[in-house]
């Protein structure tokens, strides 16, 4: 009996050590803006256009054309935050050209140890200028990597371009902005261009079964939170910014494929050679329930109306001009009425490995692209 008791005690004492000493939960260290309060969105629905886009350090609202910019300065949206976190509006306003404003907010975590600043922007939805060429001259280094934007002639910043750089950042491979898959080509056709390089994501990437990252740049958004869990859905293509019916896509490119083509498991596929992708898609979208195309369906969706795709890209070592016509797809025809109603979204996509979204490609494949222009039908 004593023996049994003794053993029971030892077993109990051991298990006690590991199960019963869970400490009291620490206050939260996070301070995210999770959402914009539905009540506030409802109260301001007259001026808002579409849904706000929330990222780790910014909230973007689009507003209707007729909204007075002075009104925008007085807006004070209400946010849902990480439980326990609090927020204060900073006494700072910045104009975005003549078409929008930036407001600034600071959030602080429940434990008080962490805080971050959010840039909250209200911008009038702007369509692409029919004469505009995307020259990739407007870029900045954000965190560790390059980001691009467009500007209208009044200096309004238009955040149209996105890349997968934020996802690559997780791999720990990017020590300088030039190490990232999407970087600046200092010898563009005119000024700067964009340089897309398929990179290895190292041990961490291999662990995640995402051994490579193709360089990409596209009109749309990149959802970093999805980057490793659902990478195809992380690339949200397109905005409702088409001014007319696109006729052709022109521009310049250079391409050198990498030596060794590999699959998702990083196994060499000897009979495949890497190739790049340059394309543009105009597709139908419901303005009241915005669901963009993403990496899983950008070239296969039934909603595609017009598509322009560089069919057989060459391996050009010098800047080479391309011109690709938009063709109707899925038996759909372009309808100006739908364009007026905001029912068409357009994207332009370039990638250094055509199947990079599926982690197939050759490390080292390099696509440079510059002076991209969509030519529009005169109305």
């Amino acid at each position, binding site marked *: 009996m004593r*023996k049994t008791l*003794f*053993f029971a005690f*030892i*077993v109990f*004492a*051991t298990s006690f*050590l*590991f*199960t019963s*000493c*869970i*400490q*009291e*939960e*620490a206050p939260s*260290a*996070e*301070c*995210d803006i999770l959402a914009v309060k539905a009540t506030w969105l409802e109260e301001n629905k007259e001026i808002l256009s579409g849904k706000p886009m929330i990222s*780790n350090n910014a909230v973007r609202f689009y507003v209707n054309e007729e909204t007075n910019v002075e009104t925008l300065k007085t807006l004070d949206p209400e946010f849902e935050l990480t439980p326990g976190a609090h927020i204060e509006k900073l006494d700072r306003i910045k104009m975005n050209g003549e078409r929008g404003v930036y407001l600034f907010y600071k959030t602080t*975590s429940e434990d008080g140890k*962490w*805080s*971050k600043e959010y840039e909250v922007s209200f911008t009038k939805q702007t369509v692409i200028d029919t004469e505009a060429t995307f020259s990739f001259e407007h870029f900045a280094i954000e*965190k560790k990597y390059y980001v691009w934007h467009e500007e209208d002639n009044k200096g309004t910043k238009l955040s149209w371009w996105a890349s997968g750089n*934020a*996802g690559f*950042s*997780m*791999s*720990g*491979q990017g020590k300088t902005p030039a190490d990232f898959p999407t970087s600046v080509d200092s010898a563009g056709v005119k000024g700067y261009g964009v340089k897309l390089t398929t990179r290895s994501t*190292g*041990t*961490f990437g291999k*662990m*995640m079964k995402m051994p490579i990252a193709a360089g990409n740049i596209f009109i749309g958004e990149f959802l*970093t*939170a*999805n*980057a*490793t*869990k659902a990478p195809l859905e992380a690339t949200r293509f397109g905005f409702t910014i088409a001014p007319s019916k696109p006729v052709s896509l022109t521009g310049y490119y250079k391409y050198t494929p990498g030596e060794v083509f590999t699959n998702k498991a990083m196994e060499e596929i000897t009979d495949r050679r890497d190739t790049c992708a340059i394309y543009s898609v105009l597709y139908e979208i419901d303005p009241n329930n915005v669901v963009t195309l993403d990496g899983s369906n950008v070239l296969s969706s039934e909603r595609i109306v017009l598509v322009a795709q560089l069919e057989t890209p060459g391996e050009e070592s010098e800047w080479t001009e391309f011109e690709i016509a938009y063709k109707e797809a899925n038996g759909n025809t372009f309808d100006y009425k739908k364009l007026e109603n905001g029912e068409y979204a357009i994207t332009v996509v370039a990638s250094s490995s055509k199947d990079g979204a599926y982690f197939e490609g050759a490390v080292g494949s390099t696509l440079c692209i510059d002076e991209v222009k969509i030519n529009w039908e005169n109305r």
Partner: protein
Amino acid sequence: MRKIIIALVASFIALTTTAGNANNSISDTDKNLIKAALQGWSIRLSAGYNLGGTAPLPLPVEIRGIEGFNPGLNLSLKGSAEKMFGKGNWGLRWGVELETKGMTTNADTKNYYMEVANGDGIVSGYWTGKVKTKVKNTYLSIPVLAVYKINERWNVSAGAYASFLLDGEFTGAAYDGYLREGNPTGEKTELDNALYDFSKDIRKFQYGVQAGAEYKIYKHLSVFADLKWGLNGIFPSDYSSVTFALYPIYCTLGFTYLF
């Protein structure tokens, strides 16, 4: 190091063989063993099961719950020699033990800082989500214990041990959660399943203290329980992939054959 082990094993063999010299009939107890016993010496062979965990102490605030614990099959085989001093109750026991210390756990974590350094890159951030850990380390251990005989049936022992890693495994997965890059305000990335393997970084040498009790059931058989408390973490103290020290704390339950 290897020399010490060899010397210990050799002295053991020497002790047992001299004790059991040229005697063809199988008897209950060898005469030499009886002689040795009269001088306070005894030889024992033990087999046991290691139950416990390789865990941080106390559990850090980042660990929100233990959802699963599987002690696994961890065996221990030990040969030891004991010398009782004079006619008193005190003695010394030392031996060589081949043992496995392992477990598998599923823990819930919140804001757990981790840094995974691979030769080619460093990923660091705060993980909120589940962590599965499998530890299975095989050691050659040398316990040196003071023994106190309470009575004919009971004795207790306490002392220290040194362990040398023969084979180590520390693997697992971070799953169903998200990583915040750099700090808790950093970019959030959801992860389904990220596997890790830190086996090659396990410390080769462990030491600790242990205490136990033994109960003699028959003349040649006893049962025992020993609590072994590791005093150094299983990873080097500056190891950044696992930021808190993990101490092996195991209880060996087993029986001993007394020669």
